[in-house]
């Protein structure tokens, strides 16, 4: 910018030929200064001009400069009164910056509003037009004049502005005096304008600087107020600008602890490596994650790095980086993710639960209906649907049944909703929609309350009572039948008891009769024996010739009497034995004895018969046969019977008696084997029956009562043993007696 002084001097040397826009100074009389006329005056004038210019040098204030200039006007040009007005930047009025020769409040209050378009002063300012107002001669003259501190005095108006530039004026100079316009004034306004212009420009410049400074500090404050670190780096990654938060992360003074400085160094490395990557150059702006260390406590900080390349033609390209702390954000986002996952799981579980519940509800055969708090159905299973929903192709009657069902159920639920009961059991008379058959159901309803105790739903389970009623009916019938049966059983039982009593009495009577029979038999045998005794005795005496010898034919006849008498005695004895066994009056008398001794004893007793039969009787008795414990008398009776039978039914050959011990069974077997007539297989069981001889004819060939084997079998059983037979007709028989070695009591 060219120096204002140099311009002033140049202007002064050039004789300015300033003209208005219209090219003439209309209405303003020219005032010429006398200094132009003589060389002395010329020298004085130059001196005065230099004095003014010197006065301007060092004055930077508008007021100062204006007062100096107006004073110079008064002293050099003899202008006794003058006022200078300037429009400050951004103002819409002209304000007084300097006066000369004028006093009073009118001067200090004087100003010109540029919006007052009717004011001639405003017109002069706007059009850069010089004006002259002579002293008024009439009221109309006065009316046309603007209100000024000059009041009714004449005055000139000169616009102030830079000549040569198509710029607006910035002020007005008002000078009093009716004299014609002095030529010196042009030079003056020119120089003065330039001075004021210079001051005004400097002021504007200073204002701009101040404003810029304020804005910059405001910008810094704003940047510092941002809690995210903000950085400006140049193309080489050097830090140019950093806000307070960034400084704590990326700078550390020498006094800081080693740990903190280390953290800062690491942060710088991490940042520059992040910024130097090609991604920035290619995309211009990027977002990425940057992991830094908190120098204060060493904790990890996660930032989102937002870098933008700035192109500046003067300062070269740089990178603006904004770091957004997302540590908490990430934690929060992880938490959100976690919660979302949990929610998903819960949702899946809830769905599975709900599916399962539906499955369960549907699988229940009983109808289930869930109603909300308003009584509207919110869920029902398939059996319930059959009752309460109208099927697609339902007949009118079916629809009516369903509607009736619905009405009955609704009234039940309504009753449930208004009652205070938590549960309610009732019976509803429904109908089967398919058949219209009456279907009484038992309804069990339960309220479901929220955790605040508000009613949320009512669950009702319906149970078909038809089966139960049917069952109850059947049960009743069954019970009746059972009662009937019981009565019959009781009657029968009473009958049986009566019969039992009868039987018991009969048993007693029988027992008594049996005892009487036994007693009778015993008495009878005694009564039989007594005469028989006499008969046998006398026969024996006759045969012995006690009363004299008899003739041989008599002896033979006496012999017949004797043998028949003995047979009769045997029969009596055997009947007596059987009756004693049956009456239980044949007690066991146990002793220990040797079987070979007993067999020999029996053999010697039967020796006369053996001799008569001319049969060989062979004994096969081991010498070391241990003694047995049994009833000797009864065993002897059995052996006696078996041996005499063998002798009786054998005509030639022999009889063998053998004994043997069976250690395993702890028994002893005694066999009597003959070579006699034998017994047919079919008859082998019958021979042990009472009064049984195979030849049952009255004229049978063999004597005997037929009671012998029957008695033997009974005796063997009494002793805990048994008798068996093996036989072949014509070849012989073997009777085997088996006895326990230690007989029972």
């Amino acid at each position, binding site marked *: 910018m060219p120096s204002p002084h140099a311009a002033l001097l140049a202007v002064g040397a050039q004789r300015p030929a300033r003209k208005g826009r219209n090219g003439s100074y209309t209405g303003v009389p020219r005032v010429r200064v006398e200094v132009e006329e003589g060389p002395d005056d010329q020298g004085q004038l130059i001196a005065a001009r230099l004095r003014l210019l010197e006065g301007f040098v060092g004055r930077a204030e508008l007021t100062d400069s204006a007062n100096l200039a107006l004073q110079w006007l008064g002293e050099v040009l003899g202008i006794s009164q003058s006022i200078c007005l300037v429009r400050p930047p951004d103002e819409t009025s002209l304000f007084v910056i300097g006066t000369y020769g004028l006093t009073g409040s009118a001067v200090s209050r004087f100003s010109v509003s540029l919006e007052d378009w009717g004011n001639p002063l405003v017109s002069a300012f706007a059009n850069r037009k010089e004006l002259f107002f002579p002293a008024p001669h009439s009221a109309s003259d006065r009316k046309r004049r603007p209100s000024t501190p000059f009041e009714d005095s004449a005055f000139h108006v000169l616009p102030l502005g830079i000549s040569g530039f198509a710029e607006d004026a910035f002020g007005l100079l008002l000078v009093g005096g009716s004299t014609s316009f002095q030529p010196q004034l042009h030079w003056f306004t020119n120089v003065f304008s330039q001075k004021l212009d210079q001051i005004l420009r400097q002021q504007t410049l200073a204002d701009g600087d101040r404003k810029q400074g304020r804005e910059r500090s405001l910008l810094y404050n704003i940047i510092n107020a941002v809690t995210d670190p903000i950085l400006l780096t140049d193309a080489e990654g050097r830090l140019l600008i950093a806000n307070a938060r960034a400084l704590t992360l990326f700078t550390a003074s020498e006094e800081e602890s080693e740990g903190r400085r280390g953290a800062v160094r690491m942060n710088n490395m991490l940042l520059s490596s992040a910024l130097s990557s090609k991604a920035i150059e290619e995309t211009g702006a990027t977002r990425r994650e940057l992991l830094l260390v908190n120098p204060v406590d060493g904790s990890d900080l996660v930032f989102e790095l937002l870098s933008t390349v700035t192109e500046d033609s003067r300062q070269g390209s740089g990178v603006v980086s904004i770091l957004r702390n997302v540590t908490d954000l990430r934690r929060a986002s992880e938490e959100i993710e976690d919660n979302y996952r949990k929610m998903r799981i819960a949702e899946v579980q809830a769905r599975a639960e709900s599916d399962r519940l539906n499955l369960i509800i549907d699988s229940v055969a009983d109808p289930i209906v869930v109603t909300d708090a308003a009584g509207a159905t919110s869920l029902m299973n398939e059996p319930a649907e059959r009752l309460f929903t109208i099927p697609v192709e339902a007949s009118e009657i079916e629809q009516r049944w369903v509607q009736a069902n619905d009405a009955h159920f609704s009234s039940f639920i309504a009753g449930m909703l208004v009652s205070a009961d938590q549960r309610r059991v009732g019976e509803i008379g429904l109908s089967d929609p398919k058949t219209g058959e009456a279907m009484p159901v038992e309804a069990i309803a339960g309220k479901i309350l929220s955790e605040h105790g508000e009613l949320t739903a009512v669950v009702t389970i319906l149970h078909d009572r038809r089966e139960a009623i049917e069952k109850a009916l059947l049960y009743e019938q069954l019970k009746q039948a059972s009662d009937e049966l019981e009565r019959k059983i009781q009657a029968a039982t009473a009958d049986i008891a009566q019969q039992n009593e009868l039987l018991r009495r009969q048993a007693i009577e029988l027992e008594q009769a049996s005892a009487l029979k036994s007693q009778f038999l*015993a008495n009878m*045998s*005694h*009564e039989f*024996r*007594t*005469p*028989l*005794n*006499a008969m*046998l*005795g*006398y026969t*024996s*005496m006759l045969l*012995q010739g*006690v009363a004299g010898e008899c003739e041989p034919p008599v002896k033979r006849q006496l012999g017949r009497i004797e*043998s028949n008498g*003995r*047979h009769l*005695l*045997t029969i009596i*004895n055997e009947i*007596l034995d059987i009756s*004693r066994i049956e009456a239980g*009056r*044949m*007690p066991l008398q146990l002793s220990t004895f040797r079987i070979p001794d007993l067999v020999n004893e029996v053999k010697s*007793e*039967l020796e*006369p*018969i053996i001799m008569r039969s001319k049969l060989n009787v062979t004994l096969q008795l081991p010498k070391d046969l241990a003694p047995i414990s049994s009833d000797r*008398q009864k065993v002897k009776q059995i052996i*006696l*019977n078996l041996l*005499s039978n063998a002798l*009786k039914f054998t005509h030639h050959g022999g009889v063998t008696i053998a004994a043997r011990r069976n250690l395993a069974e702890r028994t002893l077997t005694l066999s009597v084997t003959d070579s006699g007539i034998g017994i047919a297989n079919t008859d082998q069981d019958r021979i042990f029956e009472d009064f049984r001889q195979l030849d049952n004819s009255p004229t049978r060939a063999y*004597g*005997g009562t037929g009671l012998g084997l029957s008695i033997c079998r009974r005796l063997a059983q009494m002793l805990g043993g048994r008798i068996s037979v093996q036989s072949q007709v014509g070849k012989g028989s073997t009777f085997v007696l088996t006895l326990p070695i230690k007989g029972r009591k």
Partner: protein
Amino acid sequence: MTNKLQRPRVLLVDDYPDAREMYSEYLEFSGFDVVEAGNGMEALQRAVDTAPDIILMDLSLPVMDGWEATRRLKADQRTKAIPVVALTGHALAGISEGAKQAGCDAFVTKPCLPEDLVREIRKILDGPSSSIAKPRRSGKHAKTS
């Protein structure tokens, strides 16, 4: 006593006259002196009066039965040494036992042939100091035919 008198004396107690007469006749024939009694009471009197060498006592007797008579005989100092042979037609178990308890020295079941009875008496009289004879079943000879 057997030595003192040539014929040993037998007191035969039986209420059945045919049997008494038969045994009496055979005993006389066999060389015994026979005293008879028809009941227990009479038997006690005869035993004291005649001092027999042996008493044949039927058990079923009128007035006083054989068991009671035997008990009294064995309780009497004068008669207690005389052997008593029970003679009965009762073959039921317990009879012989009851007879032994009453003090009988031997037991013979009727029917008993006269010669068998004599053999039994001789056995007791000849036996060492009147040993008790073994009771015998009467049916042994009936088994054969």
